[in-house]
């Protein structure tokens, strides 16, 4: 009964973290706060993202606590509205959108393509400062009474009927949007212009393809929500009348502009996670990704089609029947490339040599949960069923399945997979596997009952509900507690591993990417010798030939 694992660590009695790496190259707080090094910026993002994740998580905890009982006993309805609004704003703008791109994307893309840094390091740093500025504004908003319109700022509620901090929240989202735009812009330029010799488009890791597709969305879609926020601000302060029916304006115009971004935003959130899954599934099946070209093109297809479907968030809002028809049909289309990816990942697993290290556990979780979430999206894209399911807990369950069961699991998968590369240390495998299982159980217990609640008719964004819904709500809250434990554990053991984790060496996973052919943590300039790409992606035969050579030059001894 041996533990089946592909992990290959150097001899721990002689192994050391390489003395010269991007962390030790320069010291002092300013060397971090004024850095241009994409790897340091990634770590700055990782720390701030984790901070905002736990704030958003605490807000979720408050929501679930309130929903334990049918009455509004924990907080007033207005307060509840503020809690779920800030939960949405923080989780979407300050966690999910930047999660994988700003941390793993920033860290890995230059290394994966064989470059020394991103094309625009100063813009990269500016991105982080914009993120922090937006985040501080969001916290200020919470401290000064919050906002209760829902993260969707629907007009005319947000422009005419609430007295809460719509302006500051809008400004926070506006600033965070520019952070996102600059990240995407940087990635597109880098991927086009800075690939190493021999790194053709179709030798790129699929992680890079997904980030490329997500970056197109960031650059083209985000400005539209920016102008929508500006218009809401002007409507609120000056009463210009652009969304005000009494002045001839149309509240739906805001929704068109808002969702023109916010639908592509969900693909901005999920595509980088899909990139992680491609890498992880390939590595832990020891097989190249099945249908590389299809997966690469499906990323771009998701990005392109994702622009054409936004009004499926508006089926019941008063758009014309013809618009409902067209957008519903187009929504069916956009499901296809996602399904192609799921099929290709499954075929990658088929006849692979599968092992179940933590990143792979999270990836399996992703496969199942994202599939369920995605398929329920098709129910919602069908306008007939959407009329009954929209604004119920079915929607809440749908997007949490894709975002938490999908995206967050992908983030954790990637964080564990590349942790040894970023820090030079391995995380403890047993406890992390346990945390992954706890997360999976907690997740299902939290969100599956919400599908049932939705079909039974429980509306979303309500602090109170009919008593017959209580049992399922109690299950959901119990699950949320377990989920919280599952998310807390990685914080603890990952921090522990920084001091006590095993030394990882260059390539503990025996992975094929360029980032694994150099030391862990990497040098500031990434590679001692700039690479030339002379093999296909996920070429495990090439890796076998390299194993001898790389073992000889591996930097594991002191100095």
């Amino acid at each position, binding site marked *: 009964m041996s533990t089946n694992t592909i992990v290959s660590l150097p001899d721990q009695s002689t192994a050391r973290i390489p003395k010269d790496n991007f962390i030790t190259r320069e010291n002092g707080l300013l060397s971090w706060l004024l850095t241009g090094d994409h790897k340091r910026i990634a770590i700055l993002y990782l720390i701030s993202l984790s901070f905002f994740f736990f704030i958003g998580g605490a807000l979720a905890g408050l929501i679930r606590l309130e929903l334990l009982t049918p009455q509004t006993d924990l907080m007033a309805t207005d307060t509840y509205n503020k809690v779920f609004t800030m939960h949405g704003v923080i989780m979407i703008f300050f966690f999910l959108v930047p999660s994988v791109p700003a941390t793993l994307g920033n860290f890995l893309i230059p290394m994966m393509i064989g470059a020394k840094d991103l094309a625009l390091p100063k813009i990269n740093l500016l991105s982080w400062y914009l993120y922090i500025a937006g985040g501080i504004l969001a916290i200020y908003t919470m401290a000064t009474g919050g906002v209760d319109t829902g993260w969707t700022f629907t007009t005319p509620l947000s422009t005419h009927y609430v007295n809460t901090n719509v302006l500051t929240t809008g400004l926070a989202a506006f600033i965070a949007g520019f952070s996102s735009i600059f990240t995407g812009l940087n990635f597109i330029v880098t991927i*086009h212009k800075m690939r190493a010799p021999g790194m053709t488009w179709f030798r790129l890791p699929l992680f890079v393809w997904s980030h490329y597709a997500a970056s*197109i969305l960031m650059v*083209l879609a985000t400005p*539209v929500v920016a102008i929508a926020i500006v218009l809401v601000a002007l409507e609120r302060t000056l009463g210009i009348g652009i969304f005000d029916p009494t002045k001839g304006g*149309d509240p*739906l*115009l805001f929704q*068109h*502009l808002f969702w*023109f971004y916010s639908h592509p935003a969900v693909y901005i959130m999920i595509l980088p996670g899909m990139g992680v899954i491609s890498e992880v599934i390939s590595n832990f099946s020891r097989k190249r990704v099945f249908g590389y070209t299809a997966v690469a093109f499906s990323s771009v297809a998701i990005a392109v089609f994702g*622009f*054409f479907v936004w*009004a499926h968030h508006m089926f019941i809002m008063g*758009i*014309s*029947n*013809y*618009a409902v028809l*067209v957008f519903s049909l187009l929504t069916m289309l956009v499901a296809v490339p996602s399904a192609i990816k799921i099929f290709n990942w499954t075929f990658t697993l088929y006849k692979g040599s599968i092992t179940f290290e933590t990143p792979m556990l999270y990836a399996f979780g992703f496969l199942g949960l994202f599939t369920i979430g995605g398929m329920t999206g098709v129910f919602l894209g069908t306008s007939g069923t959407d009329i009954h399911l929209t604004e119920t807990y079915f929607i809440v369950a749908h997007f949490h399945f894709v975002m938490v069961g999908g995206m967050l699991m992908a983030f954790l998968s990637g964080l564990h997979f590349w942790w040894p590369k970023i820090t030079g240390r391995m995380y403890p495998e047993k406890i992390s596997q346990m945390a992954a299982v706890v997360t999976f159980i907690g997740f299902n217990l939290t969100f599956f009952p919400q599908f049932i609640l939705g079909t039974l008719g429980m509306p979303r964004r309500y602090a109170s509900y009919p008593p017959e819904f209580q049992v399922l709500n109690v299950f959901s809250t119990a699950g949320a507690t377990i989920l919280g434990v599952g998310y807390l554990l990685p914080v603890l053991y990952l921090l522990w591993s920084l001091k006590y984790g095993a030394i990882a060496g260059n390539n503990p996973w025996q992975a094929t990417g360029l980032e694994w052919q150099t030391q862990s943590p990497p040098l500031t300039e990434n590679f001692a010798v700039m690479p030339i790409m002379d093999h296909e992606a996920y070429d495990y035969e090439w890796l076998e030939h390299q194993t001898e050579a790389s073992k000889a030059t591996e930097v594991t001894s002191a100095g």
Partner: protein
Amino acid sequence: MSEPNEQAHNGHQVVGPAVYVAILFSLLVGTGLTVWASFLELGPWNPIIALAIATTKAMLVVLFFMHVKYSTKLTKLTVFAGIFMFLVLISMTLSDYISRAWGSW
């Protein structure tokens, strides 16, 4: 030292004053044309002509002042992507507004 096709240090083609003067002239003519056309009663053609002239002027600026005619395929594709997305935003949103007037089926 002033031929329009000389190579600059960075290897791009240098576009010279002759081209720019020609484009300037065209843009000024276009401006006069569009103002004159707006004073004519042309029914539904007024906005179409105004937009057509504006688009022609914009194309001249993009191709010649912004050097897109002399740029790489990537630049041309990028410009196209921007215009395409802009048109998608406008046309698909407008399609909702226009079809509202058609009533329910």
